[in-house]
């Protein structure tokens, strides 16, 4: 049963058009050449076109799960649409074996006026289930969606989470050979997410799964192969999930630094590194459990006597995950009216692998030792990457605490 290749993608490319006007016109031309059976013209770009998917190849067997990751617009969804047979490749060839199921548009065909029960039948029919099959699974679906009381209420009275839950419940009744999933596991509360995850985990042993997500913990848990796309190209393909996730994190470039506050503190030079100061990467690497060091040269305006410094660490979704205050250690930096050099060392970084950035805040020391004027706040000043093994990558929380397990 295993070693059965269910998906074979060979040098597949797809072009898209940036301008709507041209896109429609090309569409018309393409329909015409399709209708007369002309084959040429697929492999060169016309004006305003670009390769949305560029020369992608991979194979997937039953029991394998490919995590397909990349930034928005990298071509993941386009690739999925080609795998699903919705659009044709412009180059290359795709072979799919067996029944293909897609968890992509949950609740497709729902009509908001109709009841949940009526919509189950519509949605199931769209996904290719017969009425008899649906009848048999109806109870299971209602049960899975946790909707016993609401099943005869119109779908427009549902919360968006409920509608998606119902859609997921219907779609999960399919038992496909190939399963395509596009960003759908982020629905519902934790209880429902866990249920979805377990179902998927079970299904992934029976099918070949392609899983598109931006949630790296989920990818790290489900996938056993990983492909990273950027601008239509595959930039990394590996069986080691941690490596793939690392490449994905690399694809985020440094954001512009925004400065707030009165401007009475000015950073002249900053270095941020993990481990040895000698490493000079474009994005500093910090090992989980290792040290994070920030070296800082800055000046204070003449009327500032002394200041305190705070470090804030944000994760990729701009959620603050940790803070550090010099004032908490009773440390104040006196103004010497020239460049002040400060070195901040934060030991035993407990963050899950991923991309983080540091924000630095300078606050004047108040007359009575309280917080004074906000001198400067450098937002997203420096990015750094935390690396660790794939167990750490699968953490949902940004902080992984060490513990003693007796």
């Amino acid at each position, binding site marked *: 049963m295993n070693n*059965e290749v*269910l998906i074979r993608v060979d040098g597949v490319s797809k072009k*898209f058009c940036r301008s709507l006007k041209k*896109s*429609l016109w*090309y*569409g*018309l031309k*393409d*329909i015409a*050449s*399709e*209708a*007369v*059976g*002309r*084959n040429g013209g*697929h492999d060169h770009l016309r004006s305003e076109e670009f390769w949305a998917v560029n020369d992608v190849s991979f194979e997937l067997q039953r029991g394998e799960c490919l995590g397909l990751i990349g930034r928005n617009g990298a071509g993941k969804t386009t690739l999925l*649409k*080609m795998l*699903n*047979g*919705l*659009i*044709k*490749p*412009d*180059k*290359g*060839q*795709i*072979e*799919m*074996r*067996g*029944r*293909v199921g*897609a968890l*992509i*548009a949950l609740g*497709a*065909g729902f*009509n908001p*006026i*109709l009841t949940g029960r*009526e*919509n189950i*039948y*519509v949605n199931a*029919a*769209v*996904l*290719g289930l*017969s*009425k008899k099959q649906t009848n048999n699974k109806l109870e299971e679906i209602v049960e899975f969606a946790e909707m016993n009381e609401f099943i005869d209420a119109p779908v427009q009275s549902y919360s968006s989470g409920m509608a998606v839950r119902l859609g997921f419940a219907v779609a999960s009744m399919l038992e496909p*050979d190939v399963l395509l999933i596009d960003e759908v596991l982020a629905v519902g509360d934790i209880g429902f997410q866990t249920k979805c995850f377990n179902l998927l985990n079970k299904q992934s042993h029976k099918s070949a799964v392609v899983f598109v997500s931006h949630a790296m913990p989920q990818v790290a848990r489900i996938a056993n192969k990983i492909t990273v796309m950027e601008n239509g190209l595959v930039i990394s393909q590996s069986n080691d999930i941690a490596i793939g996730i690392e490449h994905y994190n690399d694809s985020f470039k440094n954001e512009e630094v925004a400065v707030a506050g009165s401007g009475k503190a000015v950073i002249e030079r900053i270095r941020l590194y993990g481990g040895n100061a000698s490493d000079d990467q474009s994005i500093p690497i910090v090992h989980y459990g290792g040290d994070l060091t920030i070296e800082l040269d800055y000046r204070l305006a003449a009327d500032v006597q002394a200041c305190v410094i705070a470090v804030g660490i944000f994760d990729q979704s701009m959620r603050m995950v940790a803070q550090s205050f010099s004032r908490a250690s009773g440390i104040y930096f006196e103004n010497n009216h020239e460049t002040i050099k400060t070195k901040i060392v934060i030991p035993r970084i407990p963050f899950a692998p991923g991309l983080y950035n540091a924000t630095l805040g300078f606050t004047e020391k108040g007359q009575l030792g309280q917080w004074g004027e906000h001198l400067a706040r450098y937002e997203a000043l420096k990015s750094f990457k935390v690396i660790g093994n794939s167990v750490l990558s699968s953490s949902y929380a940004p902080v992984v605490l060490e513990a003693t397990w007796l």
Partner: protein
Amino acid sequence: MNTLFKSVYTPESAIRHPIKLLREMFRDLLASRELAWRLFVRDVSARYRQSFLGYLWAFLPPIVGTFTFVLLNRSGILNVGNMPLPYPAYVMIGTLLWQVFADAINSPIKAVTAAKTMLAKINFPREAILISGMLEVLFNFTIRLVLLITIFICYGIVPPMTMPLALIGVFAIFCLGFMIGIILTPIGLLYTDIGQALSMVLSFWMLFTPVVYTPPTTGILAQLTLLNPVSPLIVTTREWLAIGTASNLLPALIVFLVTIVLLFVGWLLYRLAMPILVERMGG
């Protein structure tokens, strides 16, 4: 191990393998029956649920339309020519038949546009959308038959022997409209101009069709009516339905045969265009 169904996707035009294409077309047509029925039931049951008057809305437009023309005729504004039937019955039959044509022509673009998101995200037999649209048009006609029966009773029209043939006539009118609609669909989905123009053209077109008055025998209007493919179908169907003659049978037959051929061409085009439409429509 190789019993699994295999699909291969390449850039090649599907029309290069006509046998395979045909086989797939009929396979999908068969596979789409249940879904088409589901979608049809969904649309019909949702249509009037949020309405106070409900199904009355299916009857009101033809009633109001007939009433208008009867009024115009009574007051002498409209000269309708020689009538083989009581005028209200003539108009009502004409309006109902024309409505089938107009509904059918609009149906494919409307149905595909409404299903855009679904088409863009899920792979299901594309024919289902068309068929559910077809069913809806025929369903609308069927419930409006109540009006027809009412008018037959009111004016004491005795149904002629040819009446059952009128079903074929209705079917032909429907096919003609649907054929034009389906051929326009690929362009109509890319450019909304088609949909806009369609409603305008239809109201104009009706004037060259013997819907509310008998066609004149001389003049420009007569020429235009002669070239109008809907005319022989409507005339023949009405005659079969209420009079028992068939003065336009040959042209009607020719129109019907051409329609059937072009309907198939439209279906083929629809299939070939679908991946390109999905790509360009987004959704």
